[in-house]
């Protein structure tokens, strides 16, 4: 499939994901979207391989990230159906991060930002406010995911796309400096999970370990 055909397929897929992403919609339809996402991701990877144009690869990467986000959002609903709040939260964060990355990967990725706003609304509606943690570290050794050079010695910038791949700064050795409670962590999966005996997700009182009854 050509790049343009792939992108048109992605647009249709994302429209379907938005259509079924509601609490009352039949779970089967959400599972179908996940399956459709997996097929589309395989097609996007193949299309990326087939082109040598860096900009085209980055455009396909942006679409890939948007599809990954849609798949994670559908899986969030599945976790909620199963009563797995932790898993649902993890999927929502993954979906939010993916669409944010899509916007940086390629200028056309900004078209997918409509999902970012919708997911923020879902977050506020489905989950109680969370308290987050953040670590501060002194980096002793790191490398660039694109060229493997020490990160301060190459020209690649973390979060940007190069030839269809996102650049990350791989921290290989670091000294822990502090852990803080923050409002806006870079990884929102780092959160306080219970406080004063209450689960911060369900707000239910947790049973002390020695009082948990064995099934």
């Amino acid at each position, binding site marked *: 499939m050509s790049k343009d055909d792939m992108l048109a397929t992605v647009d249709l897929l994302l429209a379907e994901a938005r259509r079924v992403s509601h609490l009352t919609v039949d779970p089967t339809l959400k599972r179908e979207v996940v399956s459709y996402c997996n097929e589309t991701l395989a097609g996007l990877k193949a299309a990326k391989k087939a082109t040598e144009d860096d900009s085209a690869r980055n455009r396909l990467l942006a679409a890939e990230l948007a599809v990954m986000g849609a798949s994670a959002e559908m899986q969030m609903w599945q976790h909620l159906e199963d009563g797995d709040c932790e898993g649902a939260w993890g999927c929502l964060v993954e979906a939010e991060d993916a*669409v*944010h990355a899509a*916007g*940086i990967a390629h200028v056309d990725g900004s078209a997918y*930002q409509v999902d*970012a*706003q919708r997911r*923020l609304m879902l977050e506020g509606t489905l989950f109680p406010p969370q308290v987050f943690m*953040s*670590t*501060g*570290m*002194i*980096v*002793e050794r790191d490398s660039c995911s694109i060229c493997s050079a020490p*990160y*301060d010695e*190459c*020209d*690649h*910038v*973390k*979060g940007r796309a190069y030839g269809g791949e996102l650049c990350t*700064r791989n*921290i290989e050795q*670091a000294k822990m*400096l502090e852990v*803080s409670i*923050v*409002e*806006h*962590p*870079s*990884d929102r999966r*780092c959160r306080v999970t219970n406080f004063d005996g209450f689960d911060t997700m369900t707000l239910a009182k947790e049973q002390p370990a020695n009082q948990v009854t064995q099934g």
Partner: protein
Amino acid sequence: MAETTDYIDVAKRASELGLQLPEGVVFLPRGFATVTTAGELLNESDAIDLVKLLRAEGVTAGMTTLGGQNLPSISEHDILVHLPVVLLQAVSPTAVALMVDVLGNYVYALIAGVFDKPRVKVEVVVQKKPGTYKSVRYEGSIEGLSELRDAILEVAKDE
């Protein structure tokens, strides 16, 4: 809004700490004006990215070094952008405009979609002549960064 005040003699302070200052736009390490020894200095993680982005725009940029080695950098896993203090030494108005654009785009890319109204807090130190430095501090919206650019250019020409 941008505010202008006097700043310490950067070259003298760097010399006291044994630091080498490269030319052009320099990102000063955290604690530059306050630490007792150079061993306490840390480069902001964001400084590394900003140097790369400025160089990609053709602007001479770098970070202070100690004995020819880069200082250790600090990595903080919150999403707030820890903008380092920026030192401008004999840079052109074009380079100032590029620097402000790069800062704005960098912050926007990191926090767009996270905050409704992203805000920037940055301090830029302008070398007016050897031994004389002025600090321009800006806190406000990304869209308002043109105020910072205008304040820097005003300080630079105000002899």
